[in-house]
């Protein structure tokens, strides 16, 4: 069902776990199946220098969390906001249609973390 890339990220999730003193936290829940994702970012000079996650969800949810933290690192805030759920899914070699909403969760977690960061600095 899943691509090799998804399975690889599921087996060896990158940037997994909590972050000490994050600059932004995104907490989102999945209304479709009830899963939970938390994404933490560290920002310096408007660049996301680190990202970590914790996820309660399916294989696709874990793989997309892992991938989105990879994609976002080194990006400016504006660049990070451009990352769509499709970009995350594509980077994983695609997702089964029924699992697209899991990548939406990853996108929302990122947006919510950035929003939290912006609120904190303003």
């Amino acid at each position, binding site marked *: 069902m899943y691509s090799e890339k998804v399975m690889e990220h599921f087996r060896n999730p990158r940037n997994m776990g909590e972050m000490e003193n994050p600059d932004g936290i995104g907490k989102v829940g999945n209304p479709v199946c009830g*899963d939970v994702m938390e994404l933490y970012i560290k920002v310096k000079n408007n660049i996301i220098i680190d990202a970590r996650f914790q996820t309660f969800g*399916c294989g696709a949810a874990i793989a997309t969390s892992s991938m989105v933290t990879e994609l976002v690192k080194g990006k400016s805030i504006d660049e990070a906001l451009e990352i769509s759920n499709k970009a995350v899914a594509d980077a994983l070699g695609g997702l089964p249609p029924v699992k697209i909403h899991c990548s939406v969760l990853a996108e929302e977690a990122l947006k919510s973390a950035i929003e939290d960061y912006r609120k904190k600095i303003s």
Partner: protein
Amino acid sequence: MNNVKKTLKIYLDNNATTPIHPEVIREMENALEFTYGNPSTLYSIGKEAKAKLEEARTRVASIIGAKSEEIVFTGGGTEANNLAIFGICKAYRNKGNHIITSKIEHDSVWNTCKSLERDGIDITYLPVDSYGMVDPEELKKAIRPDTIIISIMHSNNETGTIQPVNDMARIAKDGGIPFHTDAVQSIGKIKVNVEDLGVNLLSIASHKIYGPKGIGALYIRKGTRIQPILFGGHQEKGYRPGTENVPGIVGFGKAAEIADKNIETEGLAFLRDHLYNALKEKIERIRLNGHPTKRLPNTLNVSIEFVEGEGMVLALDDLGISVGTGSACATATLEPSYVLAAMGVPPQIAHCTLRFSLGRDTTDGDIDYIIEVMPEMVKKMRGFSPLYKEYLRRRKETV
């Protein structure tokens, strides 16, 4: 969850389907090659096929204590359930407009009832208690003068909980209402006897008893009024027309014969309970879903809180272990198990469900291996679960 090479293969999803028994394969190969005649023909090749068919029928009848003329072969368990319910409805439609079933039936009963509901038939879905058990008193209360069939499963595929079918069949009989039970999960695992149960109709599927897929049977007690739902030739006395699947039926017959001789519940239940007790000792916040004792001896359904089920299935697969889950994430509809929901299991706990279903090939070594690797896997997955983190925080606060 590391990239473990899949050398081991521990199959613990025997409620989904079973591996075919080698002796069944041999009989089927033989039937495929040599028993090619059409059983409806008059010459010896056809008569030979007919004889094989009847031998299989006797074997299948024997496993449930029925007479062979009470067995109709179908294209599997789903079709047996459809034939039972639609068939009775057709025969009794002028008598009434009400069906009683339960909230935990397999899709093949559930969706059959849903379809009839759309056609205007009233359906009562009986609730279950927290063990997944229907209360016969509830059934008594639900019966109406226009009830035409009661269909309650013998045991549940997800939890293994065994229903008090004989009590319910007695109530049905007192009311003069045909009683059907989906015994697909029970056959081969526990003793099932149609006389003891007193049911009118009972469904069986071959692939759950180490036989081939796509073949099953409906037991129809002599004297039960039922109409076919497929139309064609006179095969299976017109209840299931179409040239018979002789190799499938022969395989089913062989599987039934073997199962009849080998029902051995204690060993399996011992292994299963050992698995649960050991996991409970090593993993906190694990709970059993299903009845503690009135349960199929091979079935263990547990929720391991804070870890999502599909993820656990994938992680266990990497360790060479095949199991099922009740998690919403693993279904096409993204809805959690309706069986667990009917039992009052909250969605966030149903989400964390694994079903182990042991089989004839399960060894002590298999169980020991699972006990060894599971705690590590759960620990790793809880490590990235925000729900587990929250739980730890709450626990700290209350200490």
